[in-house]
């Protein structure tokens, strides 16, 4: 499985980063970092919308680099999800990526309801979050 996901707080620090085993983790961190500028640009209310501003899903973030495709999603609480998949994975369609983001979003809202989770902390939930991401990454193969 060659997909990586990251969850970032409103202030752009990471709440959760999970890169697939074959991925260079440092490289993934860097990709997430550069993706954030694009995400911020896309959601800023500047009138010239690059995406449908009412949608939480942002789609492709910027042209494929190094055979890696980056997708973004921002919740109303300004939590950002970034997913990077291998471009060789041509079987993946837009609506599949959307549904993966929906799963991430759903699990994140569950984490918010965990009494041991303090909003703004790193996500350390094993059951709700980590295992969901594992099963999601297995799907993307």
């Amino acid at each position, binding site marked *: 499985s060659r997909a990586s996901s990251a969850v970032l707080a409103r202030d752009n620090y990471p709440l959760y980063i999970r890169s697939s085993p074959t991925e260079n983790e440092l490289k993934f961190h860097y990709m997430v970092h550069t993706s954030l500028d694009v995400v911020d640009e896309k959601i800023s*209310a500047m009138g010239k919308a690059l995406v449908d501003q009412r949608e*939480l899903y942002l789609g492709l973030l910027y042209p494929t680099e190094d055979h890696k495709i980056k997708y973004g999603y921002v919740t*109303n609480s300004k939590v950002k999800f970034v997913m990077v998949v291998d471009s060789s994975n041509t079987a993946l369609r837009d609506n599949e990526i959307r549904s993966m983001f929906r799963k991430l979003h759903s699990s994140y*809202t569950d984490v*918010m309801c965990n009494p041991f989770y303090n*909003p703004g902390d790193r996500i350390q939930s094993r059951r709700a979050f980590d295992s969901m991401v594992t099963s999601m990454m297995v799907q993307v193969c």
Partner: protein
Amino acid sequence: WKTKQEMADEALFLLLHNEMVSGVYKSAEQGEVENGRCITKLENMGFRVGQGLIERFTKDTARFKDELDIMKFICKDFWTTVFKKQIDNLRTNHQGIYVLQDNKFRLLTQMSAGKQYLEHASKYLAFTCGLIRGGLSNLGIKSIVTAEVSSMPACKFQVMIQKL
């Protein structure tokens, strides 16, 4: 017409809320009632709940356009989901102050229909003030929320947006 489930849900939150207020005051330490610490504790509880609720409630909504869009959401969708009715009146000076008026606030209707127990009203409004503040906070809006009652069960929540 309410289903048994709906009646149970409403009663559950109302009764639990009453117990929470009671619990905070019963376990208050020396001076905490007088110095407002109990009110603060209730408000902070509401804050955390508001943060979590907003995350759930905005999971499937479109992206908010602006601050007014968010306040309208609080008055309609949010209020209806939590209190089974909308805010009756929303006023704003368009400079960061909003007044939300609820003529029949669900947490006060069983308490009195006028001035009886008025001196205790603030205890039963603190959690909801926090709820609003927590919800707004998770949407990126910092605010101060206060409430006032002159005749139950009507009350007003005042939201003062803090520009960072």
